[in-house]
């Protein structure tokens, strides 16, 4: 168990800079999820921590120990690979004990360790099978067993669930979370699935193009995304972006945008940040998540309410059971609102929506950064 620090870590392949000055620090026992679109450098970062690649610059520390030049086997790190990477010629038991055997652990200790891990992962009855005789989920468990048995300081997972079917993925996700609670180990977990990131992480690092976009707790990233990329990447369906303008509305700051010829004016709450003042009269991007845009709420007509109402024509409805996703068209853009099924109307009809002004984000349209 140990903390992990990445200090100004860079990685170049030839002339291509794949990672640009990554700074990350997690405490002992934290669950860090690296998330981002394909090719953003997640696996590369994980490989740097594992020691499978060497960093071009910067420092990687486990606890107080700088490990840049430490051989992977001496870093006390275990990794679970996306393709499981089980040794095809060995039984499950041999797969799990291979690393111990190389480290010179005695046979009796190895047997005990395998039994413990097998019980933990419920793979006792699979120990004498070859990997080819296992299902995907079982292979996944064996791969985790191989990592667990070494009792490492840090676990690395590289998209461990992406080869499983949807149902199994959810089950394994829960199981990994339970395992983390139980062992209290430090985990770095790579995924491009933002739901996995939200559910598992104690902290999320969102990456894009080799640049760390935001590093924070899941809730904070969800509520206060640093920029439009993070806002759009985290959350499903993703955040709505509306081209808008900040105006002075009788002494109060308000967001205004065009709704098919009509002007919608949404006054901001009193407790809005001071920084909004300097943006009055300028174009902004108004970001609101689908759940911040609902059917007309009770109490929304009262003055000083956090809800502001406006009317719009319903284009499409997508019932999901719990909620009905209602698509409206604002300024040529499709906007999704999350409506209670019994309040949903049919496509083509007008409907009154409430915007929850507590859940809004404003972005600079040129830099795409949060205001």
């Amino acid at each position, binding site marked *: 168990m140990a903390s992990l620090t990445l200090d100004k870590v860079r990685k170049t392949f030839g002339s291509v800079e794949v990672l640009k000055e990554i700074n990350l620090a997690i405490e002992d026992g934290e669950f860090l999820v690296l998330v981002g679109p394909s090719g953003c450098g997640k696996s590369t970062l994980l490989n740097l921590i594992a020691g499978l690649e060497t960093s071009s610059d910067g420092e990687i520390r486990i606890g107080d120990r700088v490990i840049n030049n430490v051989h992977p086997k001496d870093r006390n790190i275990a990794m679970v*690979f996306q393709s499981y990477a089980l*040794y*095809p*010629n060995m039984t499950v038991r041999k797969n799990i004990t*291979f*690393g111990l055997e*190389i480290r010179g652990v005695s046979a009796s200790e190895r047997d005990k360790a395998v039994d413990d891990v097998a019980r933990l992962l419920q793979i006792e009855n699979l120990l004498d099978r070859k990997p080819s005789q296992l299902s995907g989920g079982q292979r996944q468990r064996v791969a985790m067993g191989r990592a667990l048995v*070494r009792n490492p300081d840090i676990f690395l997972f590289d998209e461990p669930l992406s080869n499983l079917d949807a149902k199994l993925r959810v089950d394994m996700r829960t199981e990994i979370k339970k395992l983390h609670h139980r062992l209290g180990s430090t985990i770095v977990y790579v995924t491009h699935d933002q739901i996995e990131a939200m559910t598992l992480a104690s902290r999320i690092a969102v990456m894009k193009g080799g640049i760390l976009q935001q590093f924070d707790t899941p809730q904070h990233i969800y509520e206060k995304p640093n920029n439009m990329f993070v806002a759009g990447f985290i959350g499903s369906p993703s955040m709505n972006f509306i081209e808008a303008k900040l105006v002075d509305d009788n002494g109060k700051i308000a967001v205004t945008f065009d709704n098919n010829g009509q002007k919608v004016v949404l006054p901001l709450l009193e407790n809005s940040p001071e920084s909004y003042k300097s943006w009055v009269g300028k174009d902004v991007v108004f970001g609101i998540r689908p759940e911040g845009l609902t059917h007309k709420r009770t109490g929304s007509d009262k003055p000083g309410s956090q809800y502001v109402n406006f009317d719009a024509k319903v284009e499409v409805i997508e019932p999901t059971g719990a909620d009905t996703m209602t698509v409206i068209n604002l300024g040529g853009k499709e906007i999704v609102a999350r409506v209670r099924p019994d309040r949903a109307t049919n496509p083509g009809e007008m409907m009154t929506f409430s915007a929850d002004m507590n859940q809004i984000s404003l972005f600079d349209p040129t830099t795409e950064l949060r205001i």
Partner: protein
Amino acid sequence: MGASSSTESNLMASLQRNLSKIVVAPSFAASLFFVYGFIIWTAWMAFSKSRMMPVYDWAGLRQYERLWQMERWHVAIENLLIFGGLFIVICLFLGCLLAVLLDQRIRAEGVLRTIFLYPMALSFIVTGTTWKWILNPGLGLEKMMHDLGWASFKFDWLVNSDFAIYTVVIAAVWQASGFIMAMFLAALRGVDQDIIRAAYMDGASLPRIYFGIIIPSIRPVFLSAIVVLAHLAVKSFDLVIALTGGGPGYSSDLPATFMYTMAFQRNQLGISAASAMMMLATVMAIIVPYLYSELRGGKKNG
């Protein structure tokens, strides 16, 4: 009128239906006749009294008995065992080693691969002739060493009846090991790189990763390589003809050269046919179980 046009369209339809069969038919007939027909004819010859010309009177197993009484046939069989055994083992070893070394993502891999693979593109006659020059004591290696001043250097295997068969091994290994390397390299490239990484993180050394994990997991390729090499060994003919001509004497005869000599120089068509049948049986003994396991494996996977 109506009737004739309908028969015409019937004809066209059946032509279209059977077009692929019609196209394949001539080559099918040819191989049926020239390959399988002559196999049967040879089998017949082996039971006949044929000497110089084919005759068709029944002699039972007489030709086989004579064959197995010939000292020369025993030499040929023994040579085949020596040659085949060494050829297969050395090719597997070298091919495997080269493939593992090339798999290390070294620079100039493409060039090296071509260099190693190139001998396979030569005909055995060229290989045999080249190595005949290289190994000829008066021309090649030995002469070169003498010219360089190493007067006591002696390498006369080519003209030594105890060692001539080993020169065939050298030339054949030179020719085929690159091909075996390519087979292994393809298999190694098919191995998930993450397995190597995982083993590396487990602390395994590179030799241990290869010999403990990677090579055992590409075992099927060994089987394919052995089958390819074994059938090359059994039907080796041109290489021996070009390199040693079966000599000195008949000390480097292989069954194929034995058969040729019997048929076309010694006027022993019957014995030759019998030896051909022995070779066929040997190849079948290798190929049939292999094909059987391959086809059955295919069904299991499919």
